[in-house]
Structures are given as C-alpha cells and as structure tokens.
C-alpha cells in the first residue's frame, strides 16, 4: 500500500510539474522545471526498481540536458513569445491520441502483475541464466552489454552521431581560443576552492561507476556522464580556456571516435575466434571470463564516447561567440 501511495504521489507531482512547464513563459523556469521533472522521474524509477535507469535519467535529464538548455538560453532568448496561433487543433489531436492510449490500457496486464507476458517470456532467461552464462550480478548490465549488446553499440553510435552533429553545426561559430582568460567566476574564491576539492572525488567516483557496473548500478554510460560533469564543472568555474588547455578539443574528438571503435572492434575480434559478432565468450579462457572481459571493454568504449560527446558538446555550446557570464542570470 505504501508503495502505491508513493507511486501515485510522485506521478501527481510529475503531472503538476508538466502542467507548470506548459503554462510558464519564462524559459529559465521552464528549463529548471524540466530538470525537476527528470529528477522526480528518477525517483520514481528507483521506486520501480530501475536503479540503472534512474541513475542515468538523473545524470542526463537533470544534469546534462539542463546545462545544455541553459547554455542555449544564454545564446538565444529568455522568454517565450505570446501565442499567436490557434491551439484547438493540437488539443484535439493530443486528446484523441490520449484517448486511444487509454483505450489500449483496457487489455493491459495490471501494474506489477507477475503473470504478465513480459515476465513470463524472454525475460526469465536473463534472470535465471545471467549467473551461469555471463557470470556477473547486474542483470541489466548483462543484457545491455551482452545479450543485447548490439543495441548498445547502436546506442553508442547514436550518441557519437549527436556529437559529430553538434560539432558540424556549431564548429563554425565557435570562438577560437584567444589566449585571454575569460573566466566567469574568478571572484568566487570559495567556489573555486570547493570545486578543486570536489573534482578529484568526482573523477574517482566516475571510475568506480565505470568499473563497478557489473556488480551494481552503473556502467559506461553513467560513468561517462559523471566524468563529463567533472569537466563541465571545472570549465564553469575556471573558464572554458582552462578546460580546453587541460583537454583540447581535438583530443576530445579523438576519444569520441575511439570509444565507438573500441566497442565495434571488440565485436570484430570475435570473428578471429570463429565466433559471431559480439560473442565475447572467445575472449577469455572460459566463456564467462570472456564475457566478463568483453563487457568491461565495451563498457569502457561507451564511457569514452559518452564523456567525450558531453565535453565536446559543452565546448561547442559554451564556446559560442556570446559566452555565458554568471551576472546574466
């Protein structure tokens, strides 16, 4: 009962947030509320036993997306223009779509019903066989990196595509490094010190998430995001120039591509052992050892690409001709 109550409460809160986003015209609060929405979603996801997803949603939705949106606002506009068009048609379309979905729920298995088809077909094997076939405790990681490892290669490619896309779109308008120190937060001494202290542990945590993904929530994607977050914090506080000196854009671009290559390459290695693509069992002495190594490697590839994409995207946004200054907020 308490589960259900928490569930409903969170969902209601989400709905309230969504409506609020709909009504607000100040983009800054829209973006902030969107971050709140993601964060509350993450709470709900934890509640629904999806810890890995929650971790990612929090890092991405509440973290990276918000930073990107704020950067965009700084470069574009603060307010939404008043509506000039009729909203009747969208309302009808959306209403009908919603009705159709509600109609579809009528034959759905009930929430949490263990006899639902999703719990009786396909998935049981993952739960029962992961221990013997893959040999790691985190089933999500097992499915992600091995059973459906090819999807994850696709996912890595998607994020790679986005990274390349942002570079292609924004590279032309990036301010070349001038040598001037445009540091936004020079005068926030406390912040600078705290940041310096924090970045070390954050990076360490990222490494932990990266290599602990087999055992608990985490993995390449989450680690990549945290890794990137450390850099972005560094850039925010010490200025873009400093961050670029630490990790130049070109290096980021290399890592970006190297991650995908690493993932794709591990799959290719299987060929030479006469195995199918992405069959890691050949990589080690035993099948599980091979799986273990394979998962570790591909997760590392994911981590590389994700962190590089996040950093390069941030560079591209923050490096635009109009930099973000903290006094603007």
């Amino acid at each position, binding site marked *: 009962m308490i589960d259900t109550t928490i569930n*409903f409460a969170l*969902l209601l809160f*989400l709905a309230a947030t*969504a409506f609020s*986003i*709909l009504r607000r015209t100040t983009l800054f609060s*829209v973006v902030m509320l*969107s971050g709140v929405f*993601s964060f509350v979603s993450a709470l709900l996801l934890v509640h*629904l*036993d*999806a*810890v890995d*997803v929650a971790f*990612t*949603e929090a890092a*991405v*939705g509440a973290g990276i*997306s918000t930073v*990107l*949106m704020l950067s*965009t606002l700084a*470069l*574009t*506009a603060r307010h*939404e*223009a008043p*509506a*000039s068009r009729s909203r009747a048609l*969208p309302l009808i379309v*959306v209403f009908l*779509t*919603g009705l159709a*979905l509600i109609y579809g*729920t*009528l034959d*759905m298995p009930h*929430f*949490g*019903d*263990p006899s639902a088809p*999703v*719990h009786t077909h396909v998935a049981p094997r*993952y*739960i029962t066989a992961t221990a013997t076939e893959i040999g790691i*405790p985190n*089933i*999500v990681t097992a*499915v992600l990196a091995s059973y459906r490892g090819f999807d994850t290669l696709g*996912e890595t490619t*998607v*994020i790679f595509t*986005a990274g390349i*896309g942002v570079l292609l*779109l*924004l590279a032309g308008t990036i301010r070349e490094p001038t040598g001037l120190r445009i540091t936004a937060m020079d005068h926030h001494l406390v912040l600078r010190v705290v940041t310096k202290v924090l970045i070390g542990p954050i990076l360490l945590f990222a490494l932990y998430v990266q290599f602990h993904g087999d*055992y608990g*929530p985490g993995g390449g994607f989450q680690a990549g995001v945290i890794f990137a977050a450390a850099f972005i914090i560094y850039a925010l506080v010490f200025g873009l120039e400093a961050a670029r000196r630490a990790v130049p854009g070109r290096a980021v671009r290399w890592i970006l591509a190297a991650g995908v290559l690493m993932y794709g390459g591990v799959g290719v290695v299987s060929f030479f052992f006469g195995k199918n693509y992405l069959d890691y069992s050949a990589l080690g002495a035993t099948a599980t050892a091979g799986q273990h190594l394979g998962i570790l490697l591909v997760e590392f590839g994911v981590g590389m690409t994700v962190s590089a994409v996040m950093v390069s*995207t941030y560079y591209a*946004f923050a490096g635009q001709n109009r930099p973000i200054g903290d006094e603007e907020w």
Partner: protein
Amino acid sequence: MSLDDVLGLFNYWMVIVLMMTGLYIVVSRGNLVKKIVGLNIFQTSVFLLYISMGKVSGGTAPILTGKPEVYSNPLPHVLILTAIVVGVATTALGLALVVRIKNAYGSIEEDEIQTMDLVAESEAETTGHRR
C-alpha cells in the same frame, strides 16, 4: 470496471497524461526551446511507461544477490537506457540547431521564422519572374 482494474491501470493512465502533456507542448508551442522541453517530457514519460511494465509487485532491482528473490524485469530497463541516450542525443542536436537558427534568423519563435521564410520566398519569386 472494478476498483482492482482502476488500481492496476492507474499508473498507466497517469503516464499517459504525462505523455500527452509533453506532446501537447511540442505541437502547440512555437518557441523552439520549449518544443525541445516538450519532447523531453514526452520521451521521459514513455520511459516511465516501459519501466512500469517491467515492475513486479514485491520485486527488487535486477541485481543478483545470491538469495532467491523476485526481480523486476531487466529488459525494459535496458531498452530505456538506450532510449535515454537517444533522447539526450536528440536534445543536444535540437539545441544546437536552435542556436544556429537564432544566429541566422535572430529569433527562436516558429511563427516569426515562418513569416520570414514566406517573405523571402515571394520576393525570390517576383524578382525571378521579373527578370
């Protein structure tokens, strides 16, 4: 429809409300940033739909503990991890486009942009025919 049905489906209904709010923001708002935010909400709600169907009553997160336990379905989690990445990739690209549009048009309101395009088009056509 029994109370049991209502309780069993209420989760999905709320998720649908969230999805539709997101979709409505996308299609009804002309501000490009807000459209992206709408897309985010739409997609995040779909994530909730997937994860909801993976939940087993009394289950725990699908991380093997060695003890016999009921685990929630890991497959939706995996799918949604992928979907989140796709979502953030789309967001990043969308925002990059917004920045470029602002540079090129000086506006991020769809209506204003469309008006500018229409004007440019009819100008091109009249000069084209005059020549």
